[in-house]
Protein backbone atom coordinates (compact mmCIF):
# COMPACT_ATOMS: atom_id res chain seq x y z
CA UNK A 1 0.00 0.00 0.00
CA UNK A 2 1.34 3.46 -0.92
CA UNK A 3 1.88 6.07 1.75
CA UNK A 4 -1.08 8.06 0.44
CA UNK A 5 -3.35 5.02 0.47
CA UNK A 6 -2.36 4.12 4.00
CA UNK A 7 -3.52 7.55 5.14
CA UNK A 8 -6.92 6.83 3.63
CA UNK A 9 -7.16 3.55 5.49
CA UNK A 10 -9.58 3.75 8.38
CA UNK A 11 -6.91 2.58 10.80
CA UNK A 12 -4.41 5.32 9.85
CA UNK A 13 -3.74 7.83 12.60
CA UNK A 14 -3.00 11.34 11.41
CA UNK A 15 -1.52 14.34 13.18
CA UNK A 16 -4.13 17.09 13.02
CA UNK A 17 -3.55 20.72 14.02
CA UNK A 18 -6.76 22.55 14.88
CA UNK A 19 -7.21 26.23 14.22
CA UNK A 20 -10.27 27.81 15.84
CA UNK A 21 -10.69 31.20 17.48
CA UNK A 22 -13.55 30.04 19.66
CA UNK A 23 -12.26 27.81 22.50
CA UNK A 24 -15.55 25.88 22.64
CA UNK A 25 -15.38 25.11 18.92
CA UNK A 26 -11.75 24.11 19.30
CA UNK A 27 -12.63 21.71 22.12
CA UNK A 28 -15.50 20.23 20.12
CA UNK A 29 -13.38 19.76 17.00
CA UNK A 30 -10.54 18.25 19.06
CA UNK A 31 -13.01 15.72 20.40
CA UNK A 32 -14.28 14.86 16.92
CA UNK A 33 -10.73 14.40 15.63
CA UNK A 34 -9.61 12.32 18.61
CA UNK A 35 -12.70 10.11 18.47
CA UNK A 36 -11.95 9.43 14.80
CA UNK A 37 -8.64 7.98 16.00
CA UNK A 38 -6.32 10.84 15.08
CA UNK A 39 -3.79 12.73 17.17
CA UNK A 40 -4.48 16.38 17.93
CA UNK A 41 -1.24 18.34 17.83
CA UNK A 42 -0.44 21.97 18.67
CA UNK A 43 -1.31 24.64 16.12
CA UNK A 44 2.32 25.16 15.13
CA UNK A 45 3.47 21.52 15.42
CA UNK A 46 4.28 19.26 12.50
CA UNK A 47 0.92 18.05 11.27
CA UNK A 48 -0.46 16.03 8.36
CA UNK A 49 -3.53 18.24 8.12
CA UNK A 50 -4.80 21.53 9.54
CA UNK A 51 -8.50 21.61 10.45
CA UNK A 52 -9.62 25.25 10.42
CA UNK A 53 -12.90 26.54 11.79
CA UNK A 54 -13.59 29.18 9.13
CA UNK A 55 -10.56 30.82 7.57
CA UNK A 56 -7.05 29.71 8.47
CA UNK A 57 -4.07 31.98 8.86
CA UNK A 58 -2.66 33.34 5.61
CA UNK A 59 0.50 31.66 4.49
CA UNK A 60 -0.49 28.25 5.87
CA UNK A 61 1.58 25.72 3.93
CA UNK A 62 0.16 22.49 5.37
CA UNK A 63 -2.92 20.94 3.72
CA UNK A 64 -6.04 22.55 5.16
CA UNK A 65 -9.61 21.37 5.65
CA UNK A 66 -11.77 24.44 6.30
CA UNK A 67 -15.21 24.37 7.88
CA UNK A 68 -17.14 27.24 6.34
CA UNK A 69 -14.07 29.19 5.23
CA UNK A 70 -14.24 31.55 2.28
CA UNK A 71 -11.20 30.24 0.44
CA UNK A 72 -12.45 27.74 -2.13
CA UNK A 73 -8.93 27.10 -3.35
CA UNK A 74 -8.01 25.15 -0.22
CA UNK A 75 -7.82 21.37 -0.64
CA UNK A 76 -10.66 20.65 1.79
CA UNK A 77 -13.78 22.82 1.86
CA UNK A 78 -16.68 21.67 4.05
CA UNK A 79 -19.61 23.58 5.49
CA UNK A 80 -19.47 24.85 9.06
CA UNK A 81 -22.01 22.22 9.97
CA UNK A 82 -20.09 19.23 8.60
CA UNK A 83 -20.63 16.13 10.73
CA UNK A 84 -17.96 13.97 12.38
CA UNK A 85 -17.85 11.38 9.60
CA UNK A 86 -17.44 14.09 6.95
CA UNK A 87 -14.64 15.75 8.93
CA UNK A 88 -12.85 12.42 9.36
CA UNK A 89 -13.23 11.54 5.67
CA UNK A 90 -12.02 14.99 4.58
CA UNK A 91 -8.96 14.86 6.88
CA UNK A 92 -7.96 11.47 5.45
CA UNK A 93 -8.60 12.47 1.85
CA UNK A 94 -6.75 15.78 2.05
CA UNK A 95 -3.74 14.25 3.80
CA UNK A 96 -3.61 11.72 0.96
CA UNK A 97 -3.38 14.56 -1.54
CA UNK A 98 -7.01 14.61 -2.67
CA UNK A 99 -9.40 17.53 -2.93
CA UNK A 100 -12.68 17.55 -1.01
CA UNK A 101 -15.78 19.52 -1.93
CA UNK A 102 -19.46 19.39 -0.96
CA UNK A 103 -21.92 19.04 -3.88
CA UNK A 104 -23.88 22.10 -2.74
CA UNK A 105 -20.84 24.27 -3.24
CA UNK A 106 -20.47 23.16 -6.82
CA UNK A 107 -23.91 24.70 -7.28
CA UNK A 108 -22.94 27.98 -5.70
CA UNK A 109 -22.68 30.87 -8.09
CA UNK A 110 -25.08 33.25 -9.68
CA UNK A 111 -27.60 31.11 -11.51
CA UNK A 112 -30.84 31.32 -13.37
CA UNK A 113 -34.27 30.57 -12.13
CA UNK A 114 -35.01 27.15 -13.56
CA UNK A 115 -38.19 26.72 -15.50
CA UNK A 116 -39.83 23.45 -14.68
CA UNK A 117 -41.65 22.72 -17.88
CA UNK A 118 -39.84 20.19 -19.99
CA UNK A 119 -40.12 17.41 -17.47
CA UNK A 120 -43.10 15.71 -15.99
CA UNK A 121 -44.18 17.43 -12.79
CA UNK A 122 -45.12 15.37 -9.76
CA UNK A 123 -48.67 15.51 -8.43
CA UNK A 124 -49.41 16.45 -4.81
CA UNK A 125 -50.24 12.77 -4.10
CA UNK A 126 -46.93 11.65 -5.57
CA UNK A 127 -45.12 14.13 -3.33
CA UNK A 128 -46.90 12.58 -0.34
CA UNK A 129 -45.83 9.11 -1.42
CA UNK A 130 -42.31 10.41 -1.91
CA UNK A 131 -42.23 11.72 1.65
CA UNK A 132 -43.15 8.27 2.93
CA UNK A 133 -40.42 6.71 0.75
CA UNK A 134 -37.94 9.11 2.32
CA UNK A 135 -38.97 7.73 5.71
CA UNK A 136 -38.20 4.23 4.47
CA UNK A 137 -41.78 3.02 4.81
CA UNK A 138 -43.00 -0.25 3.24
CA UNK A 139 -45.81 -0.27 0.68
CA UNK A 140 -48.18 -1.62 3.30
CA UNK A 141 -47.30 1.12 5.76
CA UNK A 142 -47.69 3.73 3.02
CA UNK A 143 -51.13 2.38 2.12
CA UNK A 144 -52.18 2.63 5.76
CA UNK A 145 -50.71 6.10 6.24
CA UNK A 146 -52.32 7.58 3.14
CA UNK A 147 -55.48 5.50 3.41
CA UNK A 148 -55.20 4.11 -0.12
CA UNK A 149 -54.99 0.57 -1.51
CA UNK A 150 -51.74 -1.33 -1.91
CA UNK A 151 -52.40 -1.36 -5.65
CA UNK A 152 -52.65 2.45 -5.73
CA UNK A 153 -49.40 2.78 -3.77
CA UNK A 154 -47.61 0.63 -6.35
CA UNK A 155 -49.16 2.68 -9.13
CA UNK A 156 -47.88 5.95 -7.61
CA UNK A 157 -44.40 4.54 -7.01
CA UNK A 158 -44.15 3.35 -10.62
CA UNK A 159 -45.24 6.77 -11.80
CA UNK A 160 -42.62 8.41 -9.53
CA UNK A 161 -39.88 6.16 -10.91
CA UNK A 162 -40.91 6.98 -14.46
CA UNK A 163 -41.14 10.74 -13.93
CA UNK A 164 -37.88 10.96 -11.99
CA UNK A 165 -35.96 8.46 -14.10
CA UNK A 166 -35.19 6.41 -10.99
CA UNK A 167 -34.76 2.65 -10.61
CA UNK A 168 -34.81 2.38 -6.83
CA UNK A 169 -36.62 4.10 -3.98
CA UNK A 170 -33.41 5.67 -2.72
CA UNK A 171 -32.67 7.03 -6.16
CA UNK A 172 -36.18 8.47 -6.45
CA UNK A 173 -35.84 10.24 -3.10
CA UNK A 174 -32.41 11.61 -4.05
CA UNK A 175 -33.50 12.82 -7.48
CA UNK A 176 -36.61 14.48 -6.09
CA UNK A 177 -34.49 16.27 -3.46
CA UNK A 178 -32.17 17.48 -6.22
CA UNK A 179 -35.12 18.83 -8.21
CA UNK A 180 -36.52 20.52 -5.17
CA UNK A 181 -33.19 22.17 -4.41
CA UNK A 182 -32.94 23.61 -7.91
CA UNK A 183 -36.53 24.47 -8.49
CA UNK A 184 -37.82 25.89 -5.25
CA UNK A 185 -38.73 29.51 -5.69
CA UNK A 186 -39.19 31.95 -2.88
CA UNK A 187 -41.73 34.68 -3.29
Amino acid at each position, binding site marked *: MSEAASKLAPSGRLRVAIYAMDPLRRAALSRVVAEAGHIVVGAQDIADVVLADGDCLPGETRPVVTLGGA*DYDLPGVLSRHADASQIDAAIRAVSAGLIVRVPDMMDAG*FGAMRETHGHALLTPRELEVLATLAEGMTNKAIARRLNISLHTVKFHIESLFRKLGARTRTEAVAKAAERRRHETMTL
Partner: protein
Amino acid sequence: MTGQADLLAQFSNALATRAEAARNAIVAIRVGHGRHITGMVWRSEIVVASEQSLPRKDDFEVVTADGPVLTARIAGRDPGTNIAILRLAGSVAPPPIAAGEAHTGAVALAIGADGMGGASARLGLVNLSGAEWHSRRGGLIDRRIVLDLRLARREEGGPVFDAAGACLGMSTFGPRGQVIAIPTATIERIVPLLLKDGRIARGWLGVALQAVAVPDALRETTDQSSGLMVMSVVEDGPAAQAGIVAGDIILSIDGKSTHRFWNIARQFGADSIGRKPDLRLIRSGRVITVQTTIAERPAA
Protein backbone atom coordinates in the same frame (compact mmCIF):
# COMPACT_ATOMS: atom_id res chain seq x y z
CA MET B 1 5.04 33.55 -43.29
CA THR B 2 6.46 36.82 -42.01
CA GLY B 3 3.08 38.43 -42.51
CA GLN B 4 1.37 35.82 -40.36
CA ALA B 5 3.93 36.18 -37.59
CA ASP B 6 3.38 39.90 -37.67
CA LEU B 7 -0.35 39.47 -37.32
CA LEU B 8 0.13 37.31 -34.28
CA ALA B 9 2.59 39.78 -32.79
CA GLN B 10 0.15 42.60 -33.48
CA PHE B 11 -2.67 40.67 -31.86
CA SER B 12 -0.53 39.98 -28.81
CA ASN B 13 0.71 43.55 -28.54
CA ALA B 14 -2.81 44.89 -28.85
CA LEU B 15 -3.96 42.66 -26.00
CA ALA B 16 -1.02 43.67 -23.81
CA THR B 17 -1.77 47.34 -24.47
CA ARG B 18 -5.42 46.81 -23.55
CA ALA B 19 -4.52 44.97 -20.35
CA GLU B 20 -2.08 47.72 -19.39
CA ALA B 21 -4.68 50.44 -20.00
CA ALA B 22 -7.30 48.50 -18.04
CA ARG B 23 -5.41 49.05 -14.78
CA ASN B 24 -7.40 52.26 -14.45
CA ALA B 25 -10.67 50.40 -14.88
CA ILE B 26 -10.24 48.20 -11.81
CA VAL B 27 -9.53 48.17 -8.11
CA ALA B 28 -8.66 45.33 -5.74
CA ILE B 29 -11.19 45.11 -2.90
CA ARG B 30 -9.55 43.62 0.18
CA VAL B 31 -11.75 40.97 1.77
CA GLY B 32 -9.48 39.92 4.65
CA HIS B 33 -6.92 37.18 5.22
CA GLY B 34 -4.68 38.64 2.54
CA ARG B 35 -7.27 38.06 -0.16
CA HIS B 36 -9.07 40.37 -2.51
CA ILE B 37 -11.68 40.40 -5.25
CA THR B 38 -11.89 42.78 -8.19
CA GLY B 39 -14.06 45.88 -8.53
CA MET B 40 -14.87 47.77 -11.67
CA VAL B 41 -14.39 51.56 -11.64
CA TRP B 42 -17.76 52.83 -12.78
CA ARG B 43 -17.42 56.53 -12.05
CA SER B 44 -14.65 58.54 -10.41
CA GLU B 45 -15.90 57.60 -6.94
CA ILE B 46 -18.12 54.57 -7.62
CA VAL B 47 -16.92 50.97 -7.89
CA VAL B 48 -19.09 48.05 -9.01
CA ALA B 49 -18.44 44.58 -7.56
CA SER B 50 -19.89 41.07 -7.54
CA GLU B 51 -22.49 41.04 -4.76
CA GLN B 52 -22.24 37.31 -4.07
CA SER B 53 -18.53 37.50 -3.29
CA LEU B 54 -18.45 40.71 -1.30
CA PRO B 55 -18.38 40.07 2.48
CA ARG B 56 -21.37 41.42 4.41
CA LYS B 57 -19.73 44.45 5.98
CA ASP B 58 -19.82 48.18 5.39
CA ASP B 59 -16.24 49.33 4.99
CA PHE B 60 -13.48 48.07 2.77
CA GLU B 61 -10.00 48.98 1.66
CA VAL B 62 -9.41 49.12 -2.05
CA VAL B 63 -6.14 49.20 -3.95
CA THR B 64 -6.40 51.58 -6.91
CA ALA B 65 -4.27 51.76 -10.06
CA ASP B 66 -0.54 51.74 -9.31
CA GLY B 67 -1.02 51.10 -5.61
CA PRO B 68 -2.70 53.91 -3.62
CA VAL B 69 -5.09 52.46 -1.05
CA LEU B 70 -8.44 54.15 -0.44
CA THR B 71 -11.26 53.28 1.92
CA ALA B 72 -14.63 52.51 0.40
CA ARG B 73 -18.09 52.14 1.87
CA ILE B 74 -20.95 50.00 0.63
CA ALA B 75 -23.48 52.21 -1.13
CA GLY B 76 -25.88 49.47 -2.15
CA ARG B 77 -26.25 45.80 -2.95
CA ASP B 78 -28.69 43.88 -5.09
CA PRO B 79 -28.46 40.09 -4.79
CA GLY B 80 -31.07 39.83 -7.58
CA THR B 81 -28.65 41.05 -10.24
CA ASN B 82 -25.44 40.30 -8.30
CA ILE B 83 -24.44 43.96 -8.32
CA ALA B 84 -22.95 45.80 -5.34
CA ILE B 85 -21.59 49.33 -5.38
CA LEU B 86 -18.96 50.94 -3.20
CA ARG B 87 -18.35 54.64 -2.74
CA LEU B 88 -14.68 55.55 -2.60
CA ALA B 89 -13.44 57.99 0.03
CA GLY B 90 -11.53 59.72 -2.72
CA SER B 91 -11.74 59.77 -6.45
CA VAL B 92 -9.87 58.05 -9.22
CA ALA B 93 -9.65 58.81 -12.91
CA PRO B 94 -12.42 56.71 -14.41
CA PRO B 95 -11.84 55.22 -17.84
CA PRO B 96 -14.58 55.90 -20.38
CA ILE B 97 -16.93 52.91 -20.42
CA ALA B 98 -18.67 52.16 -23.69
CA ALA B 99 -21.31 49.44 -23.52
CA GLY B 100 -20.58 46.66 -25.99
CA GLU B 101 -22.86 43.97 -27.27
CA ALA B 102 -21.80 40.37 -26.78
CA HIS B 103 -21.75 38.19 -29.90
CA THR B 104 -21.26 34.45 -29.68
CA GLY B 105 -17.76 33.58 -30.79
CA ALA B 106 -16.33 37.08 -30.34
CA VAL B 107 -13.08 37.56 -28.43
CA ALA B 108 -13.46 38.51 -24.76
CA LEU B 109 -10.72 39.98 -22.56
CA ALA B 110 -11.45 39.73 -18.83
CA ILE B 111 -9.43 41.94 -16.51
CA GLY B 112 -8.81 41.27 -12.83
CA ALA B 113 -6.91 43.09 -10.10
CA ASP B 114 -3.56 41.70 -8.96
CA GLY B 115 -3.92 43.32 -5.54
CA MET B 116 -0.96 45.67 -5.92
CA GLY B 117 -2.41 48.19 -8.33
CA GLY B 118 -1.89 46.18 -11.47
CA ALA B 119 -4.10 44.10 -13.73
CA SER B 120 -4.27 40.43 -14.60
CA ALA B 121 -5.78 39.36 -17.91
CA ARG B 122 -7.77 36.40 -19.26
CA LEU B 123 -8.53 35.83 -22.91
CA GLY B 124 -11.38 33.77 -24.24
CA LEU B 125 -14.50 33.82 -26.36
CA VAL B 126 -18.07 34.77 -25.76
CA ASN B 127 -19.20 31.17 -25.47
CA LEU B 128 -22.86 32.06 -25.68
CA SER B 129 -24.86 35.24 -25.99
CA GLY B 130 -28.57 34.83 -25.38
CA ALA B 131 -31.79 36.44 -24.32
CA GLU B 132 -32.61 38.12 -21.02
CA TRP B 133 -32.97 35.84 -18.00
CA HIS B 134 -34.16 35.82 -14.40
CA SER B 135 -31.78 34.94 -11.63
CA ARG B 136 -32.67 32.55 -8.84
CA ARG B 137 -32.71 35.60 -6.58
CA GLY B 138 -35.39 37.27 -8.65
CA GLY B 139 -33.43 39.83 -10.66
CA LEU B 140 -33.74 40.46 -14.39
CA ILE B 141 -30.45 40.24 -16.31
CA ASP B 142 -30.59 41.89 -19.72
CA ARG B 143 -28.63 39.24 -21.64
CA ARG B 144 -27.16 35.83 -21.02
CA ILE B 145 -23.42 36.12 -21.58
CA VAL B 146 -21.40 32.95 -20.95
CA LEU B 147 -17.64 33.24 -21.33
CA ASP B 148 -15.19 30.61 -22.44
CA LEU B 149 -12.36 31.51 -20.09
CA ARG B 150 -11.01 30.66 -16.68
CA LEU B 151 -11.18 33.14 -13.85
CA ALA B 152 -9.51 33.16 -10.42
CA ARG B 153 -11.67 34.13 -7.45
CA ARG B 154 -9.61 37.30 -7.01
CA GLU B 155 -10.43 38.33 -10.58
CA GLU B 156 -14.21 38.11 -10.18
CA GLY B 157 -15.97 41.44 -10.61
CA GLY B 158 -13.65 42.89 -13.21
CA PRO B 159 -14.69 44.24 -16.61
CA VAL B 160 -14.92 42.08 -19.72
CA PHE B 161 -13.99 43.84 -22.95
CA ASP B 162 -14.59 42.95 -26.56
CA ALA B 163 -12.06 43.41 -29.37
CA ALA B 164 -13.15 47.01 -29.94
CA GLY B 165 -12.51 47.83 -26.28
CA ALA B 166 -16.20 48.13 -25.43
CA CYS B 167 -17.32 46.73 -22.06
CA LEU B 168 -19.53 43.63 -22.29
CA GLY B 169 -20.10 43.56 -18.54
CA MET B 170 -18.75 42.45 -15.18
CA SER B 171 -17.28 38.98 -14.82
CA THR B 172 -18.77 36.67 -12.20
CA PHE B 173 -19.22 32.99 -11.41
CA GLY B 174 -22.36 31.15 -12.43
CA PRO B 175 -23.22 27.63 -11.25
CA ARG B 176 -20.50 24.97 -11.41
CA GLY B 177 -17.69 27.45 -11.83
CA GLN B 178 -19.03 28.71 -15.15
CA VAL B 179 -17.81 32.25 -15.89
CA ILE B 180 -20.55 34.64 -16.96
CA ALA B 181 -20.84 38.40 -17.39
CA ILE B 182 -23.48 40.68 -15.91
CA PRO B 183 -24.17 42.89 -18.96
CA THR B 184 -23.20 46.55 -18.92
CA ALA B 185 -26.85 47.37 -19.69
CA THR B 186 -27.92 45.72 -16.42
CA ILE B 187 -25.28 47.62 -14.45
CA GLU B 188 -26.39 50.88 -16.10
CA ARG B 189 -29.96 50.13 -15.08
CA ILE B 190 -29.25 49.07 -11.48
CA VAL B 191 -26.49 51.47 -10.33
CA PRO B 192 -28.66 54.64 -10.30
CA LEU B 193 -31.33 52.79 -8.30
CA LEU B 194 -28.75 51.55 -5.79
CA LEU B 195 -27.25 55.02 -5.49
CA LYS B 196 -30.69 56.36 -4.68
CA ASP B 197 -31.97 53.73 -2.23
CA GLY B 198 -29.09 51.39 -1.45
CA ARG B 199 -31.17 48.42 -2.49
CA ILE B 200 -33.63 47.19 -5.11
CA ALA B 201 -36.99 46.73 -3.49
CA ARG B 202 -38.82 43.54 -4.46
CA GLY B 203 -42.27 42.30 -3.63
CA TRP B 204 -42.67 39.46 -1.16
CA LEU B 205 -45.32 37.04 0.06
CA GLY B 206 -43.17 34.88 2.33
CA VAL B 207 -43.60 31.47 0.71
CA ALA B 208 -41.37 28.80 -0.83
CA LEU B 209 -42.96 27.29 -3.92
CA GLN B 210 -42.43 24.27 -6.10
CA ALA B 211 -44.14 23.48 -9.39
CA VAL B 212 -46.53 20.51 -9.25
CA ALA B 213 -48.94 18.87 -11.65
CA VAL B 214 -52.58 19.72 -11.03
CA PRO B 215 -54.37 16.46 -10.07
CA ASP B 216 -56.34 14.97 -12.98
CA ALA B 217 -59.67 15.41 -11.21
CA LEU B 218 -59.18 19.19 -11.10
CA ARG B 219 -57.72 19.80 -14.55
CA GLU B 220 -61.06 20.61 -16.10
CA THR B 221 -62.24 22.94 -13.31
CA THR B 222 -58.95 24.81 -13.20
CA ASP B 223 -58.14 24.65 -16.91
CA GLN B 224 -54.48 24.40 -15.92
CA SER B 225 -52.02 21.50 -15.93
CA SER B 226 -49.56 22.88 -13.36
CA GLY B 227 -49.39 25.21 -10.39
CA LEU B 228 -47.04 26.21 -7.61
CA MET B 229 -47.38 24.26 -4.39
CA VAL B 230 -46.63 26.10 -1.17
CA MET B 231 -43.81 24.14 0.49
CA SER B 232 -43.35 26.45 3.46
CA VAL B 233 -44.73 29.71 4.78
CA VAL B 234 -42.68 32.37 6.56
CA GLU B 235 -44.14 33.01 10.00
CA ASP B 236 -46.10 36.28 10.16
CA GLY B 237 -45.28 36.96 6.48
CA PRO B 238 -47.96 38.34 4.14
CA ALA B 239 -49.01 34.86 2.97
CA ALA B 240 -49.28 33.56 6.54
CA GLN B 241 -51.43 36.55 7.46
CA ALA B 242 -53.72 35.79 4.54
CA GLY B 243 -54.15 32.25 5.87
CA ILE B 244 -52.12 30.50 3.16
CA VAL B 245 -50.78 27.17 4.36
CA ALA B 246 -48.25 24.60 3.16
CA GLY B 247 -49.90 22.31 0.63
CA ASP B 248 -51.96 25.00 -1.09
CA ILE B 249 -51.40 25.01 -4.84
CA ILE B 250 -51.35 28.50 -6.33
CA LEU B 251 -52.87 28.55 -9.81
CA SER B 252 -52.80 32.22 -10.63
CA ILE B 253 -51.98 35.60 -9.15
CA ASP B 254 -54.34 38.36 -10.24
CA GLY B 255 -55.40 36.22 -13.16
CA LYS B 256 -51.83 35.51 -14.35
CA SER B 257 -51.12 31.82 -14.51
CA THR B 258 -48.30 30.46 -12.36
CA HIS B 259 -47.36 28.07 -15.15
CA ARG B 260 -44.02 29.85 -15.53
CA PHE B 261 -41.82 31.16 -12.73
CA TRP B 262 -40.60 34.20 -14.59
CA ASN B 263 -44.13 35.20 -15.46
CA ILE B 264 -44.75 35.45 -11.72
CA ALA B 265 -41.34 36.88 -10.81
CA ARG B 266 -41.84 39.88 -13.05
CA GLN B 267 -45.04 40.75 -11.18
CA PHE B 268 -43.05 41.22 -7.99
CA GLY B 269 -40.97 44.26 -8.86
CA ALA B 270 -40.64 47.34 -6.67
CA ASP B 271 -43.99 48.68 -7.88
CA SER B 272 -45.81 45.58 -6.62
CA ILE B 273 -45.35 46.47 -2.94
CA GLY B 274 -48.67 47.29 -1.31
CA ARG B 275 -50.72 45.74 -4.11
CA LYS B 276 -53.42 43.29 -3.04
CA PRO B 277 -53.53 40.51 -5.59
CA ASP B 278 -56.12 37.73 -5.63
CA LEU B 279 -54.55 34.30 -5.39
CA ARG B 280 -56.51 31.49 -6.98
CA LEU B 281 -55.52 28.26 -5.33
CA ILE B 282 -56.38 24.63 -4.72
CA ARG B 283 -56.91 23.67 -1.10
CA SER B 284 -58.20 20.26 -0.03
CA GLY B 285 -59.43 19.52 -3.54
CA ARG B 286 -61.36 22.77 -3.93
CA VAL B 287 -60.53 25.90 -5.86
CA ILE B 288 -60.72 29.04 -3.73
CA THR B 289 -59.59 32.66 -3.96
CA VAL B 290 -57.59 34.40 -1.25
CA GLN B 291 -56.51 38.02 -1.15
CA THR B 292 -53.03 38.90 0.06
CA THR B 293 -50.99 42.07 0.39
CA ILE B 294 -47.54 42.16 -1.19
CA ALA B 295 -44.92 43.41 1.27
CA GLU B 296 -41.32 44.36 0.68
CA ARG B 297 -38.87 41.47 0.71
CA PRO B 298 -36.76 41.77 3.86
CA ALA B 299 -33.00 42.05 3.43
CA ALA B 300 -31.38 38.63 3.18
